[in-house]
């Protein structure tokens, strides 16, 4: 099956600092690819590139075998991909209004049934009409996830979706991610610091260091038989940079 994304010689600079420098990376349909690595490795920048939110300085991103022109991304392509960011940025208004937002952007006015279903799935039903600014961190992150899931994106990008959350919320969000992947065959890229989470959720894991992909492998191989010394050190919990 053809990859959803094909990244080739992709670079991104912030000033003179190269934050992404990926020689080659394919992301396969329906897989959960976890990207692990220390802070500042370029993981979040990679997600913004995959969501076409900022242009690369070099190289190409092919989406379904078509090279993407970042300055003229077709709306259909843009809307195939959604990100849940580490810090959930919710719109003012109610939880329900936040969930309906993406649907309304697409001209879909009647999303009440979908909203009710997703709220129930994420244990948010009683917060349907609550103002977004009154939510706790865990609730806000669940709303952010629900707002993305309601769109049934072909690709879901998750940037530390459970960072700073309690075990209940971590378990809930992980189970929803797993269900979505299995039921809808959504392709997911999960950026996480948490190697245990990567192990629990991912089909493949990639280690990113200084903007480069050091190693990408099936989850079992990544953790049990890593090829690169830096991956071995990372898996052992040692400091790598």
């Amino acid at each position: 099956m053809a990859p959803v994304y094909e990244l080739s010689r992709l670079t991104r600079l912030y000033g003179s600092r190269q934050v992404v420098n990926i020689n080659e990376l394919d992301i396969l349909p329906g897989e959960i690819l976890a990207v692990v690595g220390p802070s500042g490795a370029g993981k979040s920048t990679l997600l913004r590139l995959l969501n076409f939110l900022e242009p690369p300085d070099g190289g190409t991103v092919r989406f379904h075998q078509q090279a993407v022109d970042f300055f003229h991304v077709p709306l259909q392509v843009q809307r195939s991909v959604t990100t849940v960011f580490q810090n959930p940025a919710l719109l003012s208004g109610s939880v329900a209004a936040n969930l309906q937002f993406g649907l309304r952007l697409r001209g879909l006015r009647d999303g009440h049934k979908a909203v009710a279903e997703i709220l129930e799935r994420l244990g948010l039903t009683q917060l349907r009409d609550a103002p977004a600014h009154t939510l706790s961190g865990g609730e806000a992150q669940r709303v952010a996830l629900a707002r993305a899931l309601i769109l049934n994106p072909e690709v879901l990008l998750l940037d530390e979706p459970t960072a700073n959350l309690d075990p209940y919320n971590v378990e809930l969000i992980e189970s929803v991610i797993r269900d979505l992947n299995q039921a809808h065959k959504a392709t997911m890229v999960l950026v996480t610091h948490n190697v245990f989470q990567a192990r629990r959720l991912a089909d493949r894991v990639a280690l990113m260091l200084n903007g480069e992909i050091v190693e990408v492998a099936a989850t079992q191989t990544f953790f049990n038989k890593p090829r690169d010394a830096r991956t071995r050190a990372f898996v052992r919990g040692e400091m790598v940079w």
Partner: protein
Amino acid sequence: METILSGIVQGLRLFFSGDPVLWKIIAVSAQVSGAALLISAVLGIPIGAWMGLSRFPGRRMIQAFIYTGMGLPPVVVGLAVYLLLSNNGLLGPLQQTWIPKLFTVEAMISAQVIIATPLVVGYTMSAVGEVSPNLRLQVRSLGATRLQVLSTTLREARRGVLIALIGGLGSIISEVGAVQMVGGNIDGSTRVMTTAILLETRRGNFELAIGLGILLLGIAFLINLSAAQLQGKGH
């Protein structure tokens, strides 16, 4: 003191009795400042939103011009518009229908648009700039077009935009220099509250001056109360 008290009583009586002279002045004021605010909003909100969201070379220079424009003295604006529209001016001799003539309501509206627009642009720019960049990124990630990002950002900044409009209205409803110079304070035609207060005070006709003064103060108070309440809701 007696004059002032008598003036207040007479002024209130004129106001509540529906005095036609007073109400004509109020109507012209509402027409001039209302139209000027509407035009300033149509021009200023999109420009302010664009300035708040865009980064380009020369932006700081434009920002400095806008901030200078926010403090334009109305008499200077009046003088500039007068010089533009007079028969010896830049636009006056062209005799085009779209160019307002001096001593008309349209000339007064033009002057007030020049006063209010930089305020609307500046406050809108600031309000839009305060919307979190993360939220804008999230909105794009949810599939918004450029226009949808702009409209969502404006919606999120709506209190600031409303305050921009209130600030614009406050600046033009109470100004006297520009409307006096380009409107000429013609009875029944271009006389507004501020120019009428000036004239009636000079004439010693304090009742009407105080009646208008009370009304103007009341409007200014309501405008500032609305702004304070909106700011309070924002925090």
